[in-house]
């Protein structure tokens, strides 16, 4: 549900992750790959200033989640390399109907302040996150729990009647039960998202003070934070989970520009940056700059171009086909994006379970067919693609426009917006006057997260304002199918139906290209575009 604003759209001038001055004390840092692993080393990553307070239910973007995710452990976690879910704090999650979930948690886990993590810490945290007067940014993640409407009425002016969701029942110190409004087979995966972390008792007495010094139950604990400079964390030696870290200190260093962070990485002042700046991609310089220090991953995201139905003349399937077949995805991903993306051929990211190749039959470059479809559409006038222009968003869309122009012989211009905030207010206000960039990255690894939030009637990110009752019905059916494989099959049928309507045009799918310093022996880029801290090994 969230889009990492910084990466996907934010100001070029703003943002970065932190880095680690690995081996800064040793002085022999240049020993390179033959260096021994230093269990007490520091890992410095590129960071950006968090957009909100450092509380799990209030953190939804990359800048904040780099720190928050390391400090908290949820019931379920995802493996760094393949995004497979596994039970982390959960002992077991059982359900028979995908509506009532019985959750047992592991015993003996402690928060950083020494108090034990109990079932009520989860229930209280979720209730806090959902309760509308708390105004938490992630509150909608709890919306399929029974009783959500009582703590968070849909009507803005209505007062909540209670602050506890009836669907959450504590069954003991280490067990609680969750009842959903309707069956939702993906729930056991969804609770791996940051917002579902437990909060210690001390939080509820002083949320404001807590935000200044968060106390979690995760592999790292909070040390200090200097706004616009850095966030420092250190290893939690009592941590019981399997994603323990193999270094001591994490230093998230805030940068104003990715270019600078990248230059620092090349001079080994920074250990990890999860994305490469456009200047490094230009002419594929990064391949020679980085050599062995290039880190590739499998991001779960997809880039599409929304073709809103409300724009006059755009409610025209032939026009949609013509545009889609006129975009030379292979050439653009190769030349303009320097192989960091691959052409998209469906509505689901390629790393996700349930992905099938070539779902979108009109996503192949076919100038002749495009021209024919365009002639048939009878469209007159000019096409535009709008987006915020910063952060490298502009170049691929300009290339897409040129491709459309060269094939169809129609005018096509890129229309810039000043920043991501302004851009999103245009889209959510349905004020687009042409096509618009519509990218998505998954909050949790499930095919469901690529369909429900975007293509369901009235969904939160339905940028094209698409509505197809048949698709809605298939999605309902899949949501309530308890068997995972059977559910995926029905989600796939929904994807097929969407691909026939082309509400938005899939264009590319990001591979995920990151960089590490030579002090870093191993690091994995996870599906959320973060360093998987448990995989990190730094050398002396």
């Amino acid at each position: 549900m969230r889009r990492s604003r910084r990466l996907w759209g934010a100001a070029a001038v703003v943002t970065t992750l932190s880095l680690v001055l690995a081996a800064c004390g040793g002085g022999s840092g240049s020993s390179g790959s033959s260096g021994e692993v230093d269990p007490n080393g520091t890992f410095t990553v590129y960071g950006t200033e968090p957009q909100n307070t450092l509380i799990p239910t209030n953190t939804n973007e990359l800048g904040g989640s780099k720190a928050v995710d390391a400090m908290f452990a949820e019931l379920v976690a995802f493996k760094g390399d393949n995004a497979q879910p596994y039970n982390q704090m959960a002992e077991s999650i059982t359900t028979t109907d995908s509506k009532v979930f019985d959750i047992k948690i592991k015993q003996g886990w402690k928060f950083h302040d020494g108090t034990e993590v109990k079932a009520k810490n989860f229930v209280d945290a979720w209730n806090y996150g959902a309760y509308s007067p708390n105004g938490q940014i992630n509150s909608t993640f709890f919306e399929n729990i029974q009783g959500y409407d009582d703590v968070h009425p849909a009507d803005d002016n209505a007062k909540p009647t209670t602050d506890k969701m009836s669907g959450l029942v504590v069954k003991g110190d280490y067990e609680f039960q969750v009842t959903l409004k309707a069956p939702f087979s993906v729930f056991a995966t969804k609770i791996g998202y940051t917002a579902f972390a437990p909060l210690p008792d001390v939080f509820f007495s002083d949320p404001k003070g807590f935000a200044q010094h968060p106390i979690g139950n995760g592999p790292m604990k909070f040390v200090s934070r200097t706004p616009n400079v850095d966030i420092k964390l250190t290893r939690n030696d009592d941590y019981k989970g399997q994603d323990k870290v193999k270094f001591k200190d994490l230093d998230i260093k805030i940068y104003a520009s990715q270019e600078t962070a990248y230059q620092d990485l090349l001079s080994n002042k920074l250990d990890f940056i999860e994305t490469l700046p456009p200047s490094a991609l230009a002419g594929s310089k990064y391949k020679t700059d980085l050599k062995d220090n290039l880190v590739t991953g499998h991001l779960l995201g997809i880039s599409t171009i929304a073709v809103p139905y409300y724009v006059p003349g755009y409610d025209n399937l032939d026009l949609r086909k013509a545009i889609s077949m006129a975009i030379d995805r292979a050439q653009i991903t190769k030349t303009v994006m320097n192989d960091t993306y691959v052409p998209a051929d469906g509505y689901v990211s390629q790393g996700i379970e349930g992905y099938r190749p070539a779902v979108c039959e009109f996503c192949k470059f076919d100038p002749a067919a495009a021209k024919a479809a365009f002639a048939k559409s009878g469209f007159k006038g000019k096409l535009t693609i709008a987006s915020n222009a910063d952060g490298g968003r502009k170049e691929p869309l300009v290339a897409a426009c040129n491709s459309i122009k060269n094939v169809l012989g129609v005018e096509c211009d890129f229309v810039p917006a000043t920043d991501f905030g302004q851009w999103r207010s245009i889209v959510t206000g349905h004020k687009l006057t042409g096509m618009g960039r519509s990218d998505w990255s998954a909050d949790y690894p499930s095919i469901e997260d690529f369909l429900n939030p975007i293509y369901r009637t009235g969904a939160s990110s339905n940028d094209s304002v698409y509505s197809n009752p048949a698709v809605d019905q298939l999605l309902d059916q899949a949501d309530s199918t308890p068997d995972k494989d059977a559910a995926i099959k029905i989600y796939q049928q929904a994807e097929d139906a969407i691909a026939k309507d082309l509400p938005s045009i899939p264009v590319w799918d990001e591979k995920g290209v990151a960089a590490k310093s030579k002090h870093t022996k191993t690091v994995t880029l996870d599906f959320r575009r973060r360093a998987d801290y448990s995989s990190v090994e730094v050398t002396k």
Partner: protein
Amino acid sequence: MIRYVLRRLLQLIPVFFGTTFLIYVLVWAVPGDPFSGKCGQTACPQAYVDLMTEKFHLNDNLILQYLKYLGSLFTGDWGETFNGTSVGELIATSYPITLRLALVAVLIEAVIGLTAGVLTGLRGKGFLDNLVLVSTTFLISLPVFVTAIVLQLVLGTELGIIDTSVSDDPSFGELIVPGIALGSLSMAYVARLTRTSIAENRHADYIRTAIAKGQPNSRVVGVHLLRNSVIPVLTFLGTDLGALMGGAIVTEGVFNINGLGGLIFRGIQNRESATVVGVVVLLVLVYLLMSLIVDLLYAVLDPRIRYD
């Protein structure tokens, strides 16, 4: 003179109110609401938007918002950003760094610009003059982001002479290269202005008189010529300090300097009026003080100018 200074200081008051109000109106007029981009590709929960709107008084009318801001400002509270950081604290950390950077830039443009200007102004047309003309024009033509990135790439990445980014609390030495990038445009201007001024005054009566009196050349140039030629340059340098402090957005970004420029830019993007107004008020105050100092210096340097 004392009365003049007092009058000028009194003028700070209306300017303070004028500026804060103007900036408040401008930030308020930036389109798009502050929370439209906060939740990525989806709209934020209404409860979150309501809470933030309430907390930052965004629903009040403009005048009321402004008065509430002033009220808390006079009790020493600069307000806080949307992610809960105190604006006062942010400014306290960034301000000295930006001031340092601007001082370095002014110093560099004064030294290099004045030297180049004096030399070319005295020598007149020739190779040196043309060299300075072409190189300054080149600097003028390139936007600062190009100058800064080229300097960073060549001196930092390629040659390794400087670090590609500065430390959290940079020393004057670290700021020299960023200062060159920041001051390059003004440096070009200072050089041209000095050259013009010198060339013009070289033929003035008092110089002729000084030479006729048999004074040594160094004294003629150093005391008579420079003192009179430096007045317009001084105006520029003084006011430029203020301009450089606010105009360092790009340079600060390139060299990762945690200064006011970045604060303003992020403030504008997030539509955080508390940050933007706070920083800009400080900048305007600096600007006002500098222009007062410059005006007073006129009177000292040029006895013909009187304030009464």
